[in-house]
């Protein structure tokens, strides 16, 4: 964390030099060059540039903007749904209402009642009943939709678990057997890659079910990732579903924060099988352990390709924050992936401060669709003479350009902690 904002600071200190009065020139000591200009009291007392910066940060700052989620809009305000809504209005008021009114009138016309009750019974009542019907119907439709999605998801889970659990145990059993006997028979060698590829397919399957449960429309561009050692995939991060969207195409091993609750359970059972690595944001010593695990993983030939989200946190899909250099120090090729969600139907940004993951999933399941584009971009390697930080920035440029995101010079972890005092001194 100390290293991450380095390049931001070097650039900002050079612009601060212009603000700072040239005191060194004016010092009454021996080691002095010619004073560049006369230093007046005015220059010394004029703190307006610094104050302007501070006020600018109070009024609007690029960091908070990264995590701003848009308020949910009423469901009919976009170009696809609005005509549907109009059609609905036409049908309701133009067709349904008159026909109902007509039937009521014909039924009641031969009854002799006073005009007031006539009006109430035949005009006001059907009108309100009509509205009640429609809103009830809409409500039922939405609930039906949700039930369908949950059913799809449950079906997916049933299929998945019924195949995954036996495969998993078979695989584990094989490992144990191997360790016990200390010999690798030809039979074992042959079956285990077959079993692990089944496991991979199953994980991809359950992810596709997940994506289907919230009507995900994902468009993949570019060549599919291939399983090779010495490569790492990096992507920008908007929500936990990034991982699911990517996983349904290729089984990745991901490095992620260990979550509490049912997600943590999922993590330790299913995701373990694809070789995921855990870390804990709050532990300081964790970094070295994780770095070692990462290195070991990329060396292994039959490990799933490793996927890393170098931003370290969820960002609202309009901006990218600074990438952590961990992924870029492993000495292997980095394949960038850019993900961009289309906000037209739903905002996929998971504001982890505002809602838990379960609520977020429910919100996704009750919205119309999740539309996104995934671009697999050209693999990059460290250029000679380039530092990992510069490499990270270069890859961030590529991803931001492809997905149309703006770059912001902040470290994502500032969401969780304050900049340390030495950053202030540096400035």
């Amino acid at each position: 964390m100390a290293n991450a904002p380095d390049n931001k600071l070097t650039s900002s200190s050079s612009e601060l030099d212009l603000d700072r009065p040239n005191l060194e020139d004016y010092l009454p000591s021996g080691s002095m060059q010619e004073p560049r200009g006369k230093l007046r009291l005015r220059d010394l007392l004029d703190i307006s540039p610094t104050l302007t910066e501070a006020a600018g940060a109070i009024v609007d700052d690029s960091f908070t903007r990264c995590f701003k989620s848009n308020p949910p809009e009423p469901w009919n305000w976009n170009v696809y749904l609005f005509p549907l809504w109009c059609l609905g209005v036409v049908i309701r008021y133009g067709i349904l209402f008159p026909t109902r009114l007509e039937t009521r009138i014909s039924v009641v016309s031969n009854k002799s009642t006073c005009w007031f009750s006539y009006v109430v019974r035949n005009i006001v009542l059907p009108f309100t009943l009509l509205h009640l019907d429609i809103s009830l119907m809409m409500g039922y439709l939405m609930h039906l939709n949700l039930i369908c999605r949950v059913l799809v998801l449950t079906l997916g889970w049933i299929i998945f678990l019924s195949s995954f659990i036996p495969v998993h145990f078979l695989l584990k059993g094989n490992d144990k057997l191997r360790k016990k006997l200390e010999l690798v028979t030809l039979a074992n060698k042959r079956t285990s890659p077959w079993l692990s590829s089944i496991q991979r397919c199953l994980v991809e399957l359950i992810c596709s079910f997940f994506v289907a449960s919230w009507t995900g429309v994902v468009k993949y561009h570019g060549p599919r990732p291939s399983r090779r050692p010495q490569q790492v995939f990096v992507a920008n991060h908007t929500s936990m579903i990034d991982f699911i969207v990517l996983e349904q195409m290729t089984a990745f091993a991901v490095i992620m924060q260990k979550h509490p609750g049912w997600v943590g359970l999922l993590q330790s059972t299913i995701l373990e099988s694809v070789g995921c690595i855990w870390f804990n944001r709050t532990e300081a010593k964790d970094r070295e352990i994780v770095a070692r695990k990462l290195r070991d993983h990329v060396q292994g030939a039959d490990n799933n390709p490793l996927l890393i989200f170098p931003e370290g946190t969820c960002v609202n899909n309009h901006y990218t924050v600074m990438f952590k250099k961990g992924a870029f120090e492993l000495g292997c090729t980095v394949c960038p992936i850019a993900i961009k969600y289309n906000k037209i139907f739903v905002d996929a940004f998971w504001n982890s401060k505002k809602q838990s993951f379960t609520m977020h999933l429910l919100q996704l399941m009750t919205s119309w669709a999740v539309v996104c584009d995934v671009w697999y971009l050209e693999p990059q390697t460290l250029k000679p003479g380039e530092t990992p930080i510069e490499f990270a920035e270069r890859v961030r440029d590529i991803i931001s350009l492809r997905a149309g995101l703006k770059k912001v010079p902040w470290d994502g972890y500032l969401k969780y902690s304050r900049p340390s005092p030495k950053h202030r001194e540096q400035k």
Partner: protein
Amino acid sequence: MGTTSSTLTQYDIEEVQEHCNHTFSQQEIASLYQRFCQLDRNGGGFIAADEFLSVPEFAVNPLSQRLLRMLDGLNFKEFVAFLSAFSSRATLQQKIEFIFKVYDSSANGKVTFDDMLNVLRDLTGQFISEKQREEVLTQVLEEAGYNKNSLLVLSDFVKILGNPDLKMEVEVPVD
């Protein structure tokens, strides 16, 4: 973003506008209110010091501590009044008054040598030593006609800084 705060009524906006001497338009005040609610996470009606510090751009500013002393416990009306010096409609006098207030930490209307030294230290910190800082300040003060013991008041500041090209403006984003 603040979910607990209610929306601003027209009456409130006009009151705030009055309080800041019409340096902000009504749209800007509405925008500032959104920003205020965004920063005031616990919904207490004022922005606490650590909520200001959660904005990294603010936290790394060398004068952040001084400004925090001035910003602590302000409600929205006072917050807008605080920022009014940075509006494009603010007069030069208002801007210089603000700068004076930043220097005058004891709020008694007089800026001492130590006040000026403290601000200079915040800005230049580790780049030059304490002794050199004092020497430079003393020298420059004397050249301007003051000495180490003089107490500067607002009119002195106006005289020193009163230059039409003093730029201290911030744009309030209006969506």
